[in-house]
């Protein structure tokens, strides 16, 4: 039973991170390689708001979430907007530079010291006993719930709301969408905002469950294979890809060798790319464009 809980928690972590990769790619064809760094920024924002507003933890969390969204919008407005019309490769390189800059900035602002936002909020993270004597931490349970809510909201948003439909249209054919009067910059800015919001949310919850330090950026990178396995332009694919990677990782830790857990996401990725290069649920034509 504990094994199943471990798989669900890890899958939820990967899914929450990888949906941000998918959102940006789906709308603008850009691989955001600064996603891990944006996770880190989100977590540090929570640490800062928690330190400032320790007496009002809910306000601190809400403020950090809003700031995370704003950071994403700012990244687009100040940086990625200038990449519009340029080669996709240039935009991807731009995100790499952004990542390097954010890593440096976080050390300058918050130092490299390990931080504990949970302590700053004055909360605790008790262990919940489930059936079959399995256990889960409260924050891990919240993370699973948050992932479910985020995916449900994203499916609803993209499928039924005006801005969601505009986002899909911009992703499918930006020129046509633009000619039909869709404000592409607004759509892209919203996609960056939402992607950074989900990345920040993942960063906040991971740091609340354990701690916060610069290695979080590498966790962001570990979720990248999950998005690729599922198909970079498919939200459902990101969910399935995350589940596949999590199952492989946890089973290898339990039954084979924990060391293999580090390479298995990339092994699964290679296996999927050989059979179906556009991912399990990705669109073939999207890959051709890349």
């Amino acid at each position, binding site marked *: 039973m*504990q*094994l199943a809980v*471990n798989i669900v*928690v*890890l899958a939820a*972590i*990967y899914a929450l991170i990888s949906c941000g990769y998918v959102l940006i790619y789906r709308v603008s064809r850009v691989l955001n390689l600064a996603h891990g760094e944006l996770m880190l920024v989100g977590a540090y924002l929570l640490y800062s708001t928690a330190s400032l507003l320790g007496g009002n933890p809910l306000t601190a969390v809400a403020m950090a979430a809003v700031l995370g969204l704003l950071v994403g919008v700012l990244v687009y407005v100040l940086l990625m907007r200038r990449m519009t019309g340029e080669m996709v490769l240039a935009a991807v390189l731009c995100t790499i530079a952004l990542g390097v800059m954010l*890593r*440096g900035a976080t*050390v300058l602002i918050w*130092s*490299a*010291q*390990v931080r*504990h936002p949970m*302590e700053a909020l004055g909360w605790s*993270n008790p*262990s919940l*006993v489930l059936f079959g004597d399995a*256990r*889960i*931490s409260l924050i*891990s349970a919240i993370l699973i719930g948050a992932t479910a809510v985020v995916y449900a909201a994203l499916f609803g948003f993209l499928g039924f709301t005006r801005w969601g439909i505009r986002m899909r249209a911009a992703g499918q054919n930006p020129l046509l969408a633009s000619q039909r009067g869709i404000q592409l910059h607004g759509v892209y800015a919203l996609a960056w905002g939402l992607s950074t919001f989900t990345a920040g949310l993942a960063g906040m919850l*991971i740091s609340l*469950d*354990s*701690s916060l*330090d*610069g*290695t*979080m*950026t*590498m*966790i962001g990178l*570990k*979720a990248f294979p999950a998005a690729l396995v599922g198909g970079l332009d498919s939200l459902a694919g990101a969910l399935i890809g995350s589940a596949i990677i999590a199952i492989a*990782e*946890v089973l290898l*830790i*339990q039954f084979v060798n*924990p*060391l293999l*857990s*580090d390479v298995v996401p990339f092994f699964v990725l290679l296996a999927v790319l050989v059979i179906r290069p556009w991912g399990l649920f990705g669109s073939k034509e999207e890959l051709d464009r890349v």
Partner: protein
Amino acid sequence: MPRKYAPLIAALLTIALAPGVMAQDAYVVGLSGALTGPQAGTYAPIMESVKLYVDQLNRRGGVNARPVHLVVQDNQGEPSKAAADAKKFISQDNVILIISASVSSTYAPMAAEAKRGGIPLVYTMVCPTAVFPPKPDELQFCTGPSSGNHDGPMGVQFIKEQSRDPVRLGVVAMAIPLSRGVADSAEETAKSLGMTVVDKQIIPPPTPDYTPYASKLKSAEPNWVYATAPWVTEVKTVEALRKLGWNGKYLAIALAPTEDDMVRLKDGELYAVSANAFFHDDLPVHKEIRDAAGKANLAYPVTHLADGWIAGMVLEQALKNTSWPPTAEKVLAAMNGLKVDTKGLRGKPIEWTKTNHFRTEQYYRFYRWDSAKQSIVPAKENWATVDVK
């Protein structure tokens, strides 16, 4: 060129040449470390502490009435950058000594550059085999707390002493060479002492969730766990074990954040083995560090500063024994006959000879969290010692 610019150019030239002019009258020492990058949490405080020590030293009049000029470079824990730093120190800055505060993967390229330039190199955290007796590398020295040869056996010996019941030992390490080496030596010692090693978890660096590793470990039912890894891995593993309801005893190798985390966790079954005296011992030297840190605007807590402070003490003594004008050869000669009293930060003085660039005895102090006193207390009254042969 208009004459009106002459004063400006003169001023700029003065500013540009000032460090060089200053350096001519100073002991010039290079400090390269992971000030940023994934491992900065461990190494940046050491750099900050060395700088703090040197600032204090200069404020007191320097060494032999000369200032110490520290040239600081950030290698981000990357071997290529560390090599470039060493090259710059030697070719541009004319340093007489290089101090490294970085991950072990930067050691080989730095040592190669130091060898090319004939400059002594001092490590401040993990001590490589090149510094151990009987035939250390002639240019490499170490003030760091960790000894791959002794940490594991000493930790396991402590567990044996503490246990009345048969020990079922779990071992935790990170997938990096030194950590795995210590875990292997701990496992061997445990077996030789009649313990049962029930599981060994080698955890890869950055892991989003430590619970799967902790689950595997818990399922082996250890009553003791010995952890030897970067602190983040050690502490996240024990936290994951506790969330799973494991109530056994956990001994971890202490690093800079350990003291603060023991206070945060308040875990009565958490033990730490440290080569440095904790600040909870409240020695006069701890007060000295606290006072110095209080006057400076530091990014890290005072509990993170011991290893850098010790490196500063060693640097001061080495330079004291180096007559003016200093050369790398003179520094090397001074370092080959060095004895530094660490004022209790370590169990005994650091002593270097031509055949031993580590120390003649390695000392360990054991601590635990006392739930009744709500404080960190020694888990063993005296320092435990081992001869370094």
